[in-house]
């Protein structure tokens, strides 16, 4: 499964656990519009770190937290190997 698909799957799993009704997950959707609160994002980032072996938001002090789903996925796809 691609990084993108794994991230989408994790988002859907957490939405189900947190009883969040997700809108269609397009690249343009802002993270705010997902209905996730900071706790849900914290859980997502932690699970993705376990799944993908990387947490792009603590790798460098310069990384800013993304605005959209596309930015979010991009942060994982663009992590230097």
């Amino acid at each position: 499964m691609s990084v993108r698909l794994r991230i989408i799957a994790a988002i859907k799993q957490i939405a189900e656990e947190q009883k969040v009704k997700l809108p269609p997950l397009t690249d343009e959707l802002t993270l705010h519009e997902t209905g996730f609160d900071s706790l849900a994002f914290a859980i997502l980032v932690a699970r993705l770190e376990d799944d993908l072996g990387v947490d792009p938001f603590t790798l460098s002090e310069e990384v800013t937290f993304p605005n959209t789903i596309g930015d979010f996925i991009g942060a994982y796809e663009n992590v230097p190997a």
Partner: protein
Amino acid sequence: MSPREVFALRDHLGTALTERSISDPRHVVSLAQLATDSCLGGRSGELDGRSVLLATSGQLLAGLALIEIDGVARRMLLCPPDLKPEHLASIIADAGIDAVVTDEPQRFAECGVDLVITVGLPQPSTATGQTVRATEWLMLTSGTSGVPKIVGHTLDGLCGAIVGDSPAPGEAIPVWATFYDIRRYGGLQIFLRAIVGGGSMVLSDPGEALADHIARLAARGVTHISGTPSHWRKLLMSGSIEGFRPRYVRLSGEIADQAVLDGLKRAFPDASIGHAYASTEAGVGFAVNDGLEGFPATLLGEGRGAVDMKVVDGSLRIRSKRAAHAYVGRAAAELTDGDGYVDTGDMVELRGGRYYFVGRRNGIINVGGLKVHPEEIEAVINGHPEVRMSRAKSRRSPITGGIVVAEVVLTADADPMRADMVRNQILAECRTRLAAHKVPAMIRFVAALDVTPAGKLARTDA
């Protein structure tokens, strides 16, 4: 106080000693022997008025020596087995140690204390200890980081909770055991109950396999036994309790949740099962024997019992004659507030007429500014029938600072193939009973969880 009014441990030994003993895996020592024999080679007189560090490799010699030293030395510091060598110098300085009693004299050759007396098994002697003063008992706290604090007690205070334990004439003597080390407060309480209360003591041995230990306790007829909930969970999951039938089972040192209380009730249906609140600083607070976690709110207040208790800012405070009288040392803090209460640092919550322990003040996890006690989550997880024990802890998060994750040990008969189902059941229960930020973000199944030398769940990262 004239010497006449001073009592030491040896004066509590009583006369009917013939069947009483202290034992470990290798030796059984008759208490009667202690009246005439010396384990210090008859040199206890040299400790008159001294400040003594009692540091032995095992518990048996420590127990024998402290009976001989009490009432002779000015002070006696019980050195726990896990004391880090780097803390020795500051403890010797802070407690003003000027004599060492040990079975490893070479270990203390360079410690700057001139008088080192070797302790061994009791040998006939013309010179045994004589009670001449009330010795100050020093114990060390089991803090996980930094230098342990030195806490000062008196024998009177240490024995303050021991009443009515003596067997009636003709009744079988109680045989006590504990998973604690007797050089820690929880273990010392049991040792003193055995010695002062007219019983025998079967000591634990850290090197002994659990099944062997339990078989020995059963063979020596142990009737009363204490340990932390972590000790008991370990025993319950070992499958080693067959044939061991204590009459009295006691928990202390950590929060006794309903799952472990119920587990012990099933394992020991005929035993009286109680949990007690005690700490090295506050002494024995109270005991609860109704089989339920927490304690009735009616225990709170002043002048109701042996101890006064109140709750301030969520933490339990205790004022008691059983409490330690001071921290000892150069940088020693005040032990009590202006009204004489010790702040235990144990946080409680009132729910329906009962107080429940929710955790330690300094163990709080911070999730985006919201506070979480790991123990509160563990209590929910431990309620699952296939869970033996668990540890909730903080995991760093770039978004909320921390999130809660949990490690879970399943019971021996749990089917590992069903782990995903158990995980989902645990999480469902957590979501029902806990606020969203307290529900573990992840649950990992592990084979075992570390327990500290003091018998408590290791929380180095909390």
